């Protein structure tokens, strides 16, 4: 039986509480993993592994952290993502909201777009929910 969104959210929340040592009430759908829950690169690695274990899915390298784009001059220049880079991001991770990022596409803020809801929707697409 396919998982409901609430079921996926509950499991994603458990993963985030465990990996980021945050409180239950901090993990809201709108919370940004980096900006609000203070995740950093090693946490994204941990989260990736824990989500794979929790849901029995495979998360390819680069799906959550688009590191291969950082060195591509088509996508990044002078510490900012180009319009082409933003378009590519939207293709690779269509479940994030890029409204604020597009106003100031600073590479330091690229991970801010990954929210709890982004993860939930990504996992749902993976498990076919």
């Amino acid at each position, binding site marked *: 039986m396919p998982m409901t969104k609430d079921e996926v959210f509950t499991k994603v929340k458990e993963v985030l509480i465990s990996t980021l040592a945050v409180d239950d009430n901090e993990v809201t759908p709108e919370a940004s993993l980096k900006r609000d829950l203070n995740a950093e690169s090693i946490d994204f690695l941990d989260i990736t*592994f824990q989500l794979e274990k929790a849901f029995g899915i495979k998360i390819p390298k680069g799906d959550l952290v688009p590191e291969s784009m950082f060195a591509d001059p088509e996508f990044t220049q002078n510490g900012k993502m180009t319009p082409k880079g933003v378009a590519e991001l939207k293709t690779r991770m269509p479940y994030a909201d890029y409204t604020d990022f597009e106003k100031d596409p600073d590479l330091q803020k690229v991970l801010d777009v990954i929210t709890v809801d982004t993860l939930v929707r990504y996992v749902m697409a993976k498990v076919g929910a």
Partner: protein
Amino acid sequence: MRPRSAAPLRNIRRAFTPICLSKSSAAGTNIPLWPVRSRLAQRALKGRIVKFILVDQLISHEPGKRLVMAKNVTMAEEYLADHFPGFPVLPGVMMLEAAVQTAAWLVRQHSNFAHSLIVLKEARGVKYSSFVAPGQTLLMAADAIEITQTHSSFKIKGTVGTATAIQARLELAHVNLTQTDPALAPIDQLSINAQRERWQIFTQRQTPALAAPAPAQAAAG
């Protein structure tokens, strides 16, 4: 650092023990009781092959209260190759390690090098704000909240220029190997001697000309 995506993260973190514990591993002192009798471990304790030295310079020191040290990021640091390919920046855990090492030096000075191991017990309210790239200097300020014989707590703040890179509250544990095995006293002394030598290097090169950041603010947590 070359993380393996299929490996449990705790194995990666264990590779850093006792240098760094994740912020999700609260409480408990993760003391490395690997084969410290081995020649490899002894060389490591003498500082000859330890690679993760995350502070380069002593900037300012108020004994028992505040220590500011500098970490100069260079292209030669191996973990930058993966973090990230084509866009090297200091990993957040390395900023945290720089903070732990800065606080540990303050403890060592305060306690007259009474302990061979000063390790991270808990990190709270860790907040990362800015990247630190090769060629930049991370100034790390550790403000002591409390220092006892066995534990200490700090507010830390790392800055790059005028930008904040990291803030956190840290709790450290101070131990000697003799607490678990009196026969390890020579290893404790080896480590303490190496630490004294390194502190001597830091104080010889203290650079007062570099401006120290403002006292660390209380971090949420």
